């Protein structure tokens, strides 16, 4: 059969219509190009060193750290959904679970990949496990992220093995089944890890006594940002899942998850976001009136620099915080798809903005009285690697969507108890 040469129907789950292979490849090709560019840029950075970037001694962290914090926050949907489904037994969210896992896997693996380029001596990265400095938030981050990435890949395996051809291999099939029965354990571990490193990512900047703009007091060894990050992450995670699912539904033009799932996610996201905004506002007030002055810094010192004036603070808390929160909590919103997605998008932007402020603005602001406000523009290598990660995400997701039962497929919802 001539058509069978250019067809992969044998790999696509039976009864699922997918676009033809050539069209699929056509869709992938631009992303593949972007990925290739990203890999090339990353190669340059690894071979010639970080002089390929526009980072410098004052701007020691740049676009990449912002990206890492951002995607990991958005990827929080994975562990949080797992937490809701397996620990809190919210079965109605099951349809979204596989997508959550895949998205989480993409976000975390992408972040780790970028981190490996970002450090000057990747070959020594493992030292952290041998000479851990237990006072460092980064140790906590390294440890949690690497473990959680492992967990995510394990959670990804069952989905992978449910591919139509792979499942025909008995050993795969049985292993998938057995592993799937143990996934709640992984979900529990993952939840623990994620809660911690989402927090320690916030702590990363919160502990910087030398950077009064970021420094926060807190509870025990954890600055307030530790808790704010957890909150904001689990608030934005579901919103991001909604965005992804809705986008896929738009691209493929078919209904993938029942409407009530959206409603549920919207409510959860909105509720958490509202709590976050409240907490964030309190934290900001305490910081501006107590923490910062006691370090010898007056608030006007932070917000008198263009373009980082008070509007950015307003945008972070009100425009991209309070507004989407109330929208998502508003029942009617869930029925109106466009509005719902706008709200979700705003929530995600809010979180990204928060990460941006904490990473970039912190470094741009002067600390010494004779410092000047610094600006930084990433080099094409940085941007390209950034794009590479996005392309990687799109490709992995597209492949998963095409060949794996992502949305409440057979075998996911009803699983026979083996003997």
């Amino acid at each position, binding site marked *: 059969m001539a058509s069978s040469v250019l067809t992969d129907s044998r790999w696509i789950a039976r009864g699922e219509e997918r676009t033809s292979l050539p069209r699929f490849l056509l869709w992938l090709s631009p992303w593949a190009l972007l990925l290739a560019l990203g890999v090339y840029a990353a190669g340059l950075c690894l071979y010639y060193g970080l002089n390929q970037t526009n980072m410098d001694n004052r701007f020691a962290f740049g676009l990449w750290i912002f990206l890492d914090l951002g995607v990991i926050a958005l990827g929080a949907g994975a562990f949080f959904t797992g937490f809701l489904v397996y620990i809190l037994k919210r079965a109605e969210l099951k349809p979204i679970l596989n997508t959550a896992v895949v998205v989480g896997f993409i976000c975390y693996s992408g972040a780790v990949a970028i981190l490996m380029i970002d450090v000057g*001596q990747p*070959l*020594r990265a*493992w*030292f952290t496990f041998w000479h851990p400095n237990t006072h460092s938030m980064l140790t906590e981050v390294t440890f949690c992220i690497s473990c959680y990435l492992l967990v995510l890949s394990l959670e990804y395996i069952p989905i992978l093995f449910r591919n139509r051809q792979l499942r025909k*291999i*008995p*050993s*795969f099939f049985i292993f998938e089944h057995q592993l799937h029965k143990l996934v709640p354990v992984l979900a529990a571990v993952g939840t623990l890890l994620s809660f911690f490193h989402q927090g320690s990512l916030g702590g990363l900047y919160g502990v910087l006594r030398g950077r009064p703009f970021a420094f926060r007091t807190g509870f025990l060894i954890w600055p307030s940002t530790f808790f704010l990050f957890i909150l904001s992450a689990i608030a934005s995670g579901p919103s991001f899942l909604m965005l992804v699912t809705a986008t896929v539904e738009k691209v493929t033009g078919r209904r993938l998850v029942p409407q009530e799932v959206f409603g549920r996610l919207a409510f959860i996201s909105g509720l958490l976001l509202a709590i976050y905004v409240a907490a964030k506002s309190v934290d900001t007030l305490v910081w501006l009136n107590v923490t910062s002055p006691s370090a010898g810094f007056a608030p006007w010192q932070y917000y008198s620099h263009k373009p980082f004036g008070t509007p950015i603070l307003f945008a972070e808390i009100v425009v991209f915080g309070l507004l989407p929160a109330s929208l998502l909590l508003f029942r009617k919103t869930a029925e109106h798809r466009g509005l719902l997605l706008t709200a979700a998008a705003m929530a995600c932007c809010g979180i990204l903005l928060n990460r941006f402020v904490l990473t970039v603005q912190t470094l741009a602001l002067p600390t010494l009285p004779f410092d000047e406000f610094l600006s930084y523009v990433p080099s094409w290598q940085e941007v390209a690697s950034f794009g590479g990660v996005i392309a990687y995400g799109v490709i992995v997701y597209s492949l998963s969507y095409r060949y794996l039962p992502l949305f409440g497929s057979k075998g996911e919802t009803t699983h026979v108890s083996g003997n």
Partner: protein
Amino acid sequence: MRFSRRDLLVWGAGAAAGLVVTPVPWKILDDTSKWSQNWPWIPQPARVPVEFKQSACTLCPNGCGLRVRMAAGWAVGVAGLSTHSVSRGALCPLGFGAHQLNWQPQRLRAVRHRGSASSWSEAQAAFAKARSEGPIVVIDGYPGRAASFVLQSFAEKQSGNYRVVQGAETRALKPYEEWTGIPAASLGYDLENTTTILSFGTPLLDGWGVPGRFTRLWSERAAGTSDPQLRLIQVESSFSRTASKAWQWIHIREGSDSALASGLARVLVEQNLVPAHGPIPAMSLAEAASQTGLTVQAIADMARMLIAKTPTLAIAPDNNPSIAALNVLLGSVGTRGGIVRRTQSQQAYASADEIPNARAILIDSSVPWDFAPQSDAEVFRFAAWDGGPTKVDWLLPAPGFLEELTDVPTAPTASVETYGIAPSLVKPVSEVQSAAQFVAGVDSSSSSPEKVIHTRCEELYRKRSGAIVSKDRTPVSQLASAQKLEEALQNGAVWMDEPASSVKLRCELKEWPTNGPQPGPGNWTSEWAAPVLPPLASKLYIESDLRESLHRGNA
């Protein structure tokens, strides 16, 4: 029995699991990190014992004492020699990186004839021919050295001519040479005994003279006190490092230094602040005020400031007669704390500004690179570094930093005669010759620097005046032999003459000088003869906004 896909998987998994418990992956992990810790392409200094040697910096005529850290026969670090009685352990920033100069890519390593590669023998031949055909002019940038003596005597033998390119610091003393008949080279500033210094944009705290001399003096007597024993008044049109540290900074219009000097002179005379003698400047006070941008009152106050605490000394960065005249008016010429004459009299040198007809011109490596002789004679130019395009005929590689034995005559601004020796500590990186060695090669009758140094030491010993100063001070009269003296100098000691006898110089000033030659703005490296700067110096000034960008070779 068939080998099924399942078996393959099981086997693979088993192998992977097994590998983890073997030392292999851990060993690899460890080795990769070790490798990253000493990448083969990163140079590491060999762990060899270090020793310290004394010498002096001859890159400019101030001859600061050096404490050189040596390893495996190479200089691996430079610091000031704290026992050095002139520089007192201080160096200019350029000195601290000087040990890397010899390795600069701009280092001259081979003879070049009109841009193309040549050899010493060809250069010798060409020079011998020129010598047989006509007079040879020799140009020196650092007079008074043993090498200078060799060059000068050679030039005179050639019925030629010995000319000197003098630095701004020596040029600044020219007016006094005119008026007193004492050669500028034997005049100096008695900084140690002065109380008020009026500096007209002179970079006193920024590499002027022997850096250690004034900076140490300033930090002992002036720094950080509102009423210093040493009052430094800096007159400058733009804010300089010296101005920032001065007791007073007088902000005047650019190029109005002479006007201010005249203005001050008028006030001093008209208000009888000084015993009025000599001419009065033609310029009115109002005129001076309008030129400088100061008020009449300000100038008057300043004049009083000058006589409030005497002795007062006005210092110009370069040849400026009005400022010199102000010193005369203040009675600061030939008095304690003013312009003094050093005991030993130097000769007056003819300037290289105009050059008599000659068959060939020999330029010593001490002459600044940008010096271009106004002559069509064949030019033999010695230099340790290539400072860029030049239209000389012969470019001859000279010894670089610490590569030759030389002596250190008295520094241009010094108030006391000194003599030191800078032994050569490192071997040249290529086949080099100093101008003195070169002429000796051509004219067997001419002496060598080594011999001259030797004789000079014997002379000093015979005179029995002054003392050898290092950690402690030993009068020459107490030394056992000239040999001992030379050895001491070889090891970083300095011979110092008795302090200047403050005999009042007869200084006739016919009329108040009209604006003399206006000095160009002196860069902080202007006394630095080498056309390149130590890489670290230029690097750090690029990596900090501390200095104006350096338009020098590699800077």
